[in-house]
């Protein structure tokens, strides 16, 4: 291959990479700058209607229940101000648990229930051994944050 052709391909590759980056940025600005909506935002109708979006918050305590078919699971997402019920058919991630963070992607149905297509667990930035976590829980025992 002529050096000139090699150079052309290399420059095209560089431009492609740059173009890819720009496209990603533009795409992010368009729809994904808001990665998820909070239950309060969903309640105040800020979330898009009729198309898929993500809702994020905490899994409300004592809200997780499995349907009789064994596959469907229901729970509620809360940001302590508002709560949205969610229904999901599928496997839940390991870290999914009550009181912990969750991000679900799906649609808000007419009945006010969020039908999730994907449920992801969102964990916090704390890292400590189980003993430390237990001690922390005991220390906060009576106090509600």
């Amino acid at each position, binding site marked *: 291959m002529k050096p000139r052709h090699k150079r052309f391909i290399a420059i095209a590759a560089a431009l492609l990479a740059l173009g890819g*980056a720009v496209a990603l940025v533009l795409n992010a600005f368009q729809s994904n700058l808001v990665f998820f909506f909070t239950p309060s935002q969903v309640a105040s109708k800020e979330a898009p209607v009729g198309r898929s979006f993500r809702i994020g918050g905490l899994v409300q305590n004592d809200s997780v229940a499995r349907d009789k078919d064994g596959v469907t699971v229901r729970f509620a997402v809360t940001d302590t101000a508002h709560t949205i019920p969610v229904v999901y058919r599928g496997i839940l991630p390991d*870290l999914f648990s009550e009181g912990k963070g969750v991000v679900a992607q799906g649609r808000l149905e007419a009945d006010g229930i969020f039908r999730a297509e994907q449920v992801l667990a969102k964990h916090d*930035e704390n890292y400590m051994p189980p003993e430390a976590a237990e001690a922390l829980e005991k220390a906060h025992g009576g106090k509600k944050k």
Partner: protein
Amino acid sequence: MSAINWFKYSSPHSFYPLAGRMVPWFLGAAALFGITGLYVAFFVAPTDFQQGESYRIIFIHVPAAWMSMFIYLVMAGWAGAGLVFNTRLSGMMARALAPTGAMFTFLALWTGALWGKPTWGTWWVWDARLTSELILLFLYIGFLSLTAAIEDDRRADRAGAVLALVGVVNIPIIYFSVVWWNTLHQGASVSLKSAPKMATTMLLGMLLLAVAFWLYSLAAAMLRVRSIIREREPRAAAED
């Protein structure tokens, strides 16, 4: 610090042997910190209450991510210096750093994906943190491709420098992404302003490996700049 000392090593000819002498020290120190860090990571740091043993990926993931951003800033710094001072060595240093920076960016993304699957439940999401780190990889690849494409070395350095400098804005975006936007990626466990949210032994392992990666990067950059000097200015590389 007289002006003479400062610029003494700014010529490829005088920097070449200095870089060569530094390599074994950087590599030796990297190995020391690396082995100690790995020992702490696997045999001292306990399991995590939340993520179990999967959290141990942090010992690679965070140091690699830190390096990916830090190397880019240093690379852009050298690139900028080359543009401003028209010094040959500056452009060479930027080109010497890029491949290692790209590698650590890839490793941050790779280990992140392997960590995300068992914890979040997905290999990838287009949230602000992950997307901006991917853009960083594209910037590195763009820099490497662009500089490789231009035959004249000095012109290639200058074109790459412009690209590198334009991309610098991405670094604070990566860092603050978890603060500015809702993201799946969690916030910072370690920051300059607040106490670490990590157990001490976990933090120690992470810091030891971060230092190891940094020393490794120095060794790689020194070796690569020597290689570049040999290519561009063979007479400067001739030992006496």
